[in-house]
């Protein structure tokens, strides 16, 4: 039974090693846990999962594997406090979505259908624990609607019954493609750290001092080295205005994280695509432009290049001279992109648009081609992959 569980976990994307599995068996042999399912759940989680981002996945696999066993523990399902549910939904829905619900026939209808479906489900699973549509295409369901995986229908006090813990999937929002915040971004950016000794020698090099003193027949010979610091240099190009307005918050976070992390950081703004001029201050974007050509000459090739933009524009803006929406550009955006990429071989493009949408937007595909497939989504995971590509 456990061997099957082991392989299910591995299939589920949790890379459990044999040692970890054997540890779990040893723990079980030593009778640390009693015989309850929840204790087993806690134990196996502590032994097998080493990253809180994977807790959610573990919960899913666990629920799938031990579905039958739960039934033994009985069930307490499906009394949905309607007001509560409605309030939750209202909280998590945008105006648009609310309008869509109205179009579906309004709240009453929705609730009724939901209840009906729940009943059907109850029959099928004998009140099992799987909620309607855990995926999310149906308009109902615990994990589809609310990004935090708020569970519908399990009341507060009952929740504390640990048997149900894995089905609550509380760690849902830690799955690493969702959450963003300055701190997370900083952590991701840290991958790019390269410590190097540069500058004035102001630290005692103990090892070398001892060695040269020994060579010097015991007469003290002090050796100094420069201090270690992060030597990575970054040029950050930020798309601003227009369709980027939706992504202002995440860009702000990235920007402040990057400012904290890199000692050598230069940032510039552009609109949609890079042309012959960029700017550093959005209030004076028309009066104080910096020629892109000057940047190419000013910053050495060891700078790493990071574009941030949704790359959502008309294809003309990339491929035709004069295609820019703002001004007359003598040369096409693609030409300027190529120049930048030729000068700075280490480059990536971070895109705040969700990955699913990339294929439907021709300009994203074009930019991605220009970038030689080095476009990454602006999520923690995307950022980590991007940093790896830069490193």
């Amino acid at each position, binding site marked *: 039974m456990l061997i099957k569980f082991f392989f299910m976990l591995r299939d589920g994307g949790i890379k459990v090693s044999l040692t970890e599995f054997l540890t779990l068996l040893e723990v079980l042999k030593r009778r640390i846990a009693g015989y309850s399912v929840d204790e087993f759940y806690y134990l196996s989680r*502590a032994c097998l999962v080493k990253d809180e981002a994977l807790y959610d996945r573990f919960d899913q696999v666990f629920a799938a594997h031990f579905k039958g066993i739960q039934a033994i523990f009985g069930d307490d399902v499906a009394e949905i406090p309607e007001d509560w549910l409605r309030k939750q939904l209202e909280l998590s829905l945008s105006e648009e979505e609310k309008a869509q619900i109205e179009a579906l026939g309004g709240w009453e209808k929705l609730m009724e259908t939901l209840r009906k479906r729940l009943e059907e489900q109850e029959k099928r699973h004998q009140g099992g624990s799987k909620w309607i549509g855990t995926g999310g295409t149906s308009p109902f369901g615990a994990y589809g609607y609310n990004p935090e995986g708020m569970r519908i229908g399990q009341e507060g006090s009952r929740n504390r019954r640990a048997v149900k813990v894995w089905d609550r999937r509380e760690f849902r929002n830690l799955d690493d493609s969702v959450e963003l915040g300055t701190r997370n971004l900083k952590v991701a950016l840290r991958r790019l750290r390269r410590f190097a000794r540069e500058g004035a020698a102001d630290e005692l090099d103990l090892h070398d001092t001892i060695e040269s003193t020994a060579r010097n027949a015991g007469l003290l010979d002090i050796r100094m080295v420069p201090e270690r610091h992060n030597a990575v240099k970054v040029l950050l190009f930020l798309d601003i205005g227009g369709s980027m307005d939706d992504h202002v918050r995440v860009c702000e976070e990235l920007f402040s994280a990057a400012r904290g992390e890199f000692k050598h950081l230069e940032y510039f703004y552009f609109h949609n695509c890079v042309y012959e001029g960029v700017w550093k201050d959005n209030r004076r974007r028309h009066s104080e432009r910096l020629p892109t050509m000057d940047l190419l000459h000013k910053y050495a090739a060891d700078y790493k290049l990071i574009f941030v933009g949704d790359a959502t524009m008309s294809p003309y803006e990339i491929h035709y001279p004069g295609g820019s929406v703002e001004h007359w550009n003598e040369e096409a955006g693609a030409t300027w992109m190529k120049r930048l990429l030729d000068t700075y071989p280490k480059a990536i493009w971070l895109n705040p648009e969700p990955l699913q949408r990339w294929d439907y937007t021709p300009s994203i595909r074009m930019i991605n081609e220009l970038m030689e497939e080095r476009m990454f989504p602006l999520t923690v995971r995307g950022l980590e992959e991007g940093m790896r590509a830069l490193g």
Partner: protein
Amino acid sequence: MTETRFSGTDRYVATEDLMTAVNAAVTLGRPILIKGEPGTGKTQLAEEIARGLDRPLLQWHIKSTTKAQQGLYEYDAVARLRDSQLGDERVHDIANYIVRGPLWEAFDQDLQPVLLIDEIDKADIEFPNDLLRELDRMEFYVYETQQTVVAKHRPIIVITSNNEKELPDAFLRRCFFHYIRFPDHETMREIVDVHYPGLKKELLEEALKAFYGLREVPGLKKKPSTSELLDWLKLLLAEDVPPEALSSDDRRKTLPPLHGALLKNEQDVHLFERLIFLSQREGR
């Protein structure tokens, strides 16, 4: 025989999953890795395990410059060099210049000790890898004196991490892992109760409401944590703030009293003031 099962202490509320993980680690003598939001009591856990099980506690706080070797022992070459210049007799025995690290001290205890390795993610990326064998076999070799140090009892090693760096898989495989999630309303009440037993019920209710309300505010740069809540309560008690001052009606008009204990960032205070301003305008 001393106590071998940890079940929280009179000043530390441990959830069931945390207790299970700790007990597994204690029984097998393997390290336990603790992660979680700042201020959820990761470091305190080690102290409380030591207290709860009545074991000695050794602490090793990691900084960005800490090397794995320092945990085992250090060879104080400079002292020896100085002594040699002064013609001190001690210089002939190298053992005089071997300074023991926390891991050695832990291996040498007569009673199974608790060793806290705090904030392991602060160290260099290779740091955990350098400790693999030591944590696995609980022994190491002292090159200078040609001796092998073996643990008398496998210490209970508690490692905390703030996730600033990813830890290598080989290291993770040897640890138990637990993520302390942010306590829910009920657990929080227990925690506060442990720290301030005499707290007026109404004040606590209002304070918790204000606190969780604050955590819900979107866009805060730093969400207030458990330890900040406890500090805030201490202040409220010291100032003798009546519960009514915290009630939600008031909160729409002003910042909660003594908010400096909860909001540590002037942007956050501005954001909060802006939200209050907006809600006031709506209310009119």
